[in-house]
């Protein structure tokens, strides 16, 4: 028995490894997706090592009125803001906030949504009904409004922002995981696992979740894109991160007052946000095609 099990699981592992290398191969052939991936890696690299390149104190706190509102030049690639601070450094420090909030909020959303969806799909019945009806209620409010309400009620802080954006993701992930679970729950290999006496938790994590990984990865990528956009939007209307913390949406909002004469202040952070979301979308699309080659 034990031997048999170890044989099947190692076979499974081999198969899964093969699948992943296939997916990677297809993904690496997709130039747009790879461009997106490299841009993201570059962005994350800059965010992580921002302190090596720039001085946070100088970029975000100190004032340097002598150099205020300078258009992009060799000294200041993205120009300077109304207090003479280098915009390039501010954008780089801003990427820390946007990316980390984006990733953390979606991770929480995925964790909670994934668990709810898995329970809902696996057990069905009344539990499924309750969870799905609650999801319906959350989904009935447009995502952006939901985030606005939560931040408005809890007050503006980074933690509340993460909570608001994570909650906005939960029902979406719950639905995806639920339908993925439903599609494999009654398949023969899960029946087989149940027949040999596998525990429920074991079955869910060992057999069911790995099989829903495709749509989850794709949706996670796209959700991070949407969440980064929403962070910027919330900051822009004054409900997200506020000055002096350099968040992309806040930078854009700050540049708004100077749009007539110093339009680069609003243009550049917007382009950075757009490129980031574009990169995530390209990667997400590429992943979807790579994970499900039938679609192409």
């Amino acid at each position, binding site marked *: 028995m034990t031997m048999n099990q170890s044989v099947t699981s190692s076979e499974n592992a081999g198969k899964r490894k093969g699948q992943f290398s296939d997916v990677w191969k297809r993904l690496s052939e997709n130039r747009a997706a790879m461009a997106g991936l490299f841009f993201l890696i570059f962005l994350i690299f800059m965010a992580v090592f921002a302190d090596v390149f720039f001085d946070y104190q100088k970029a975000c706190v100190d004032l340097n009125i002598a150099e205020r509102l300078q258009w992009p030049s060799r000294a200041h690639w993205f120009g300077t803001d109304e207090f003479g601070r280098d915009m390039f450094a501010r954008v780089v420090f801003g990427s820390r906030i946007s990316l980390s909030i984006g990733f953390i909020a979606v991770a929480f959303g995925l964790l909670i949504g994934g668990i709810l969806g898995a329970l809902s799909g696996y057990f069905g019945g009344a539990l499924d009904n309750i969870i799905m009806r609650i999801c319906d209620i959350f989904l009935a409010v*447009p995502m*952006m*409004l939901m985030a606005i309400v939560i931040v408005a009620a809890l007050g503006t802080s980074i933690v509340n922002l993460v909570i608001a954006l994570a909650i906005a993701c939960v029902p979406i992930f719950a639905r995806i995981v639920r339908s993925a679970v439903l599609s494999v729950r009654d398949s023969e290999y899960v029946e087989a696992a149940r027949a040999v006496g596998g525990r429920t938790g074991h079955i869910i994590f060992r057999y069911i979740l790995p099989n829903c990984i495709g749509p989850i990865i794709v949706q996670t990528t796209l959700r991070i894109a949407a969440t980064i956009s929403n962070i910027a939007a919330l900051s822009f209307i004054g409900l997200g991160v506020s000055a002096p913390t350099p968040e992309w949406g806040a930078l854009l909002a700050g540049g708004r007052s100077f749009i007539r004469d110093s339009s680069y202040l*609003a243009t550049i952070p917007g382009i950075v946000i757009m490129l980031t979301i574009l990169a995530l*979308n390209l990667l997400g699309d590429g992943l979807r095609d790579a994970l499900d080659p039938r679609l192409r």
Partner: protein
Amino acid sequence: MARYIIKRILYLIPVLIGVTLLVFFIMHLAPGNAAQIILGENATPDQIAALEKEMGLDQPVIVQYLRYLGGLLHGNLGNSYATGTSVTTEIMARFPYTVRLTFVAAVFSIILALPLGIIAAVRQNTWVDSASMVFSLIGVSMPIFWLALMLILVFSLKLGWFPVYGADSWKSIILPAVSLGFMNMASIARTTRSSMVETIRQDYIRTAYSKGLNEREVIMKHAFPNGMLPTITVIGLEIGQMLGGSVLTETVFAWPGVGRLLIQSINGRDTPTVMGCIILMTISFALVNLIVDLLYGVFDPRVRTMYR
């Protein structure tokens, strides 16, 4: 069909009650005391207590909620903390602006998106396809508020064709509607393309060609009505997105709609108005999706007979 409609409407009621409950309790989490906000910093504790009693704020949350729900059924959303006037009146004065903006944006996005998506699908893997899909991909990646600022920069400040803000002439609606509808246009175009690509591969499309129809007839009479079905659903969802997005557009363009009122009330800690705005938008979203579902029944005979 009638049964289908009734079923959909009946299903909507618990969802809407759930939404009011949800929003009510989230707003209840808000720190600060309503009576304090209304009376200002200098109010005495006695005054505050008296007002709380008058407003029913001393009662349990669930009682407050039921009273609110009762008022809602009669169209009464309470009074604004900021102005003291009826929230219903205030919102209803603003609502037509949001409807107008969303409607123009939706029409703009659908009119552009459908041909874009269909052409891309029919000319799959040609430069036309690539170009329109790159265009849509950039569209879905562009933050609404940034696009709004860029439109202002180019078309108002540099070219002077449209006003920077306000809602005074027909010209005023162009930039807000374009910035609001652009992202949705891109997303509808992408859905249209992928569902049309899927449809074009179906056997009945081959049957249509084998009857001797030309490409235009096959696409318009056979592929489009089928490929439309997923797009209809997405259009409904996109209109919900637009209601959310209108908060941003209205803020940038100082458009006097519900979205701007919402932000003003949040900043003024005017809870009844915030709730009113959210509930109105949610109901609108739900109604749009209801209409979309009904349209689905009109376009897809399989749905129609299912509920006969």
